[in-house]
């Protein structure tokens, strides 16, 4: 490696390998010398290059933007979703967070709702199913009125944004001891439920999304691990918001005309 700021460290990687969803998995151990300037995923790139050179199949892992915004990446690093650095997706983690001689265990996100596809890649499509069940405002293209017709108090807009920052990576589910998806679901419910544009469908949306979530994921027992692991630091307050709205929705959605 040509001269850079970084120094080279030697790490021992314990990497999860699994040929397919139903195949048995296990750890493979590799020694890796790596510049501390490299990102964590560039370290895996180099491991794969080496494996390929040696005639072994590379480790499957997912990533795309490598800027922490698309939500494609995500692995368990030493038991933590996205690894040790706070507010940082796996792709933005750099090797300077590790020390020479470290042993690093790399596993896929572990959750019943996220079956392993291969090696470190998992299937997170249940998150799309939750959005499909109601995570939108029903407005056809062309039907919108002028954007400034409805003022939105700045505080509401800002809070809605805090929720909307969710990148859909699924770290919250992976970090949760119950594999619950409350933080993900509440981020969308909070985002839309806080805006005037989202009011018409607020109660039906909440009910549908929560109940779809429960088909795939476990229950929330307020550990708070989700928010701790979230690369966008989405607040637990949104779960409280969602729970409150779900309760109200159950009352409001009763099929008595006078209750609506």
């Amino acid at each position, binding site marked *: 490696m040509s001269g850079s700021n970084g120094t080279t460290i030697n790490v021992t990687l314990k990497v999860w390998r699994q040929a397919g969803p139903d195949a048995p998995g296990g750890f493979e151990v590799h020694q890796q010398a790596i510049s501390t300037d490299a990102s964590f995923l560039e370290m895996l790139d180099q491991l794969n290059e080496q494996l390929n050179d040696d005639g072994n199949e590379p480790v*499957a892992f997912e990533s795309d933007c490598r800027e922490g915004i698309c939500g494609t990446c995500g692995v368990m690093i030493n038991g933590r979703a996205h690894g040790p650095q706070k507010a940082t997706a796996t792709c933005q983690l750099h090797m300077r967070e590790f020390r020479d001689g470290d042993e690093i265990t790399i596993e896929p996100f572990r959750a019943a709702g996220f079956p392993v596809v291969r090696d470190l890649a998992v299937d997170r499509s249940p998150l799309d199913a939750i959005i499909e069940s109601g995570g939108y405002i029903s407005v056809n293209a062309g039907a919108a009125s002028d954007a400034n017709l409805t003022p939105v108090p700045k505080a509401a807009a800002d809070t809605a944004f805090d929720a909307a920052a969710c990148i859909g990576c699924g770290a919250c589910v992976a970090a949760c001891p119950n594999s619950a998806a409350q933080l993900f679901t509440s981020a969308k419910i909070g985002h839309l439920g806080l805006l005037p544009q989202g009011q018409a469908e607020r109660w039906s949306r909440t009910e549908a999304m929560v109940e779809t979530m429960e088909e795939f994921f476990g229950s929330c027992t307020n550990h708070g691990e989700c928010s701790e692991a979230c690369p966008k630091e989405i607040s637990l307050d949104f779960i409280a918001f969602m729970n409150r709205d779900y309760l109200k929705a159950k009352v409001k959605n009763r099929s008595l005309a006078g209750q609506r």
Partner: protein
Amino acid sequence: MDKNGILDNKVPAGSLADKWENHKFSMKLVNPNNKRKFDVIVVGTGLAGASAAATLGELGYRVKAFTFHDSPRRAHSIAAQGGINAAKNYPNDGDSVHRLFYDTVKGGDYRSREANVHRLAEVSVNIIDQATAQGVPFARDYGGLLDNRSFGGAQVSRTFYARGQTGQQLLIGAYSALMRQVAAGSVELHTRSEMLDVVKKDGRACGIVVRDLISGEVTPHSAHAVVLATGGYGNVYFLSTNAMMCNVTAAWRAHKQGAFFANPCYTQIHPTCIPTSDDFQSKLTLMSESLRNDGRIWVPTAFDDARAAADIPEDERDYYLERKYPAFGNLVPRDVASRNAKTVCDEGRGVGPLKNGVFLDFGAAIARDGHAAIAAKYGNLFDMYQRITGENPYEQPMRIYPAIHYTMGGLWVDYHLMTTVPGLYSIGEANFSDHGANRLGASALMQGLADGYFVLPYTIGDDLADLLGSPAVPTDDPVFTAAVAGVEDEANRWLSINGTRSVDHFHRELGRIVWDRIGMARNKAGLEKALTEIPALKEEFHRDVRVLGSADTLNQSLEKAGRVADFFELAELMARDALEREESCGGHFREEHQTPEGEAQRDDENFAHVAAWEWHGGDTPQTRHREELTFDNVALSQRSYK
């Protein structure tokens, strides 16, 4: 194309401002009950694809949407930071549809089609309304109304933004609109499905062939029309600010089925990216252009000055942009800032351990406004920089260097956004369309959503109306069987080469050639060299690449092999296109063609046209066709930033 080989852009007659309105009336309609008789395939679910699929579904068409991502919320539109332009004129500062049109044509260095750009400016206002109604949390002022900022040197404030995550929020809006149609049953969604061929019957696009990235299964899909919204080709450079999976494959396979590829040499360099730090770097990270509002760009006056920034006294620093362009200073356009950074680094005055960057210094701004004020403005960007480089930009200047960011070239389309293959459309960054030779900041999101929400849904009906009563070609037709076999054979071919070097190895090597020869500055000798280097490396690639594993499982090397093969062919065409365009314009800078001040020198007499290339098979070079560009509403001028 007419008999003289000139492309017909199908721009309607009439005055510029009335064309689109009049044309919407004159186009044929498909009545609501008949729309459900038409199948439309949309490939790609970024801003353009998701908005098109959602809107076509809302209209009642039977839509099949395909993405190679695991979810339609991942496309690289999501990484756009700055904002989206619209001619709303909320700030009352003199903006108008005509001004946005004018700025876009001028910014594109007079190499775009007037009628398309005007239509883009017209529908820009509808995009903001639509996105707001969907719940996109644009920035607001204390009265609760939408906030705007000036962006990329524009003289009016027309940019709407959502913190530094405008692309993300707009994509989430389009994605949720799409998922609503999936729930409604009007859109059938196929994730982890990569399009690997366009299928034609009797000259018309009738479907696509797709490989399931998990099972490896190759399947045919039939439709009355096919829409490609598959993004740009910046990753031909290997290192770019694009996401890892961005590629040209869908567009390129369409090109090989007869769709002309336009202006491939128009690529955009972004001046403020983090320089590379080692040979295994996988991608480059963009730092928002807004940093140039407060940062001062400089390099040491002396060559090979290895001192730390703080140890270099003021009189030994060269603030070269402020020196050369006193009026615009550090805010000169992207291409000018980029080329000047290259010049000083080529001279040996670059900074950092690899001497491959220039300083972007916030020292003066922090001294003037205070640490807190700068942190409030740029805190998230400074944090990102520190996370990547390990350096604290509050204490030492950032290091930046230009990187490939966007590609203006792409599939040639007419006013209806149809390619030269009937029934095949291209929208968003994948087409060559509206940005000419250079795209303005905050205009990519605008174009992707304009095409998807407000242009294609109108124009596609005009073509489909004539097909009423004819069912889509069945997928057991021989044209599909042959195409499926072709795609399966390709996968097996990669697996059987069993060479010695990885796909990434070849991609990285190709990227070096393309960056050196067809990068920020091009010249005849370099381009001719590229035309021998690229085929030589391509030959090695096809002989010596090593793709392990099998075709019936997730195999990321196999996916990449096909994409890199297409990049090789594209790179050759880029070099030829750049060689033939004997002028400089926008992102295409030919060193032979510059003003005495070192600015791009256009040749309007000979090159005010679009170059659109026609494929003739792998062994015969593409032929170059032209679409003449006429400018009736703007006067062509030489850009100057002195």
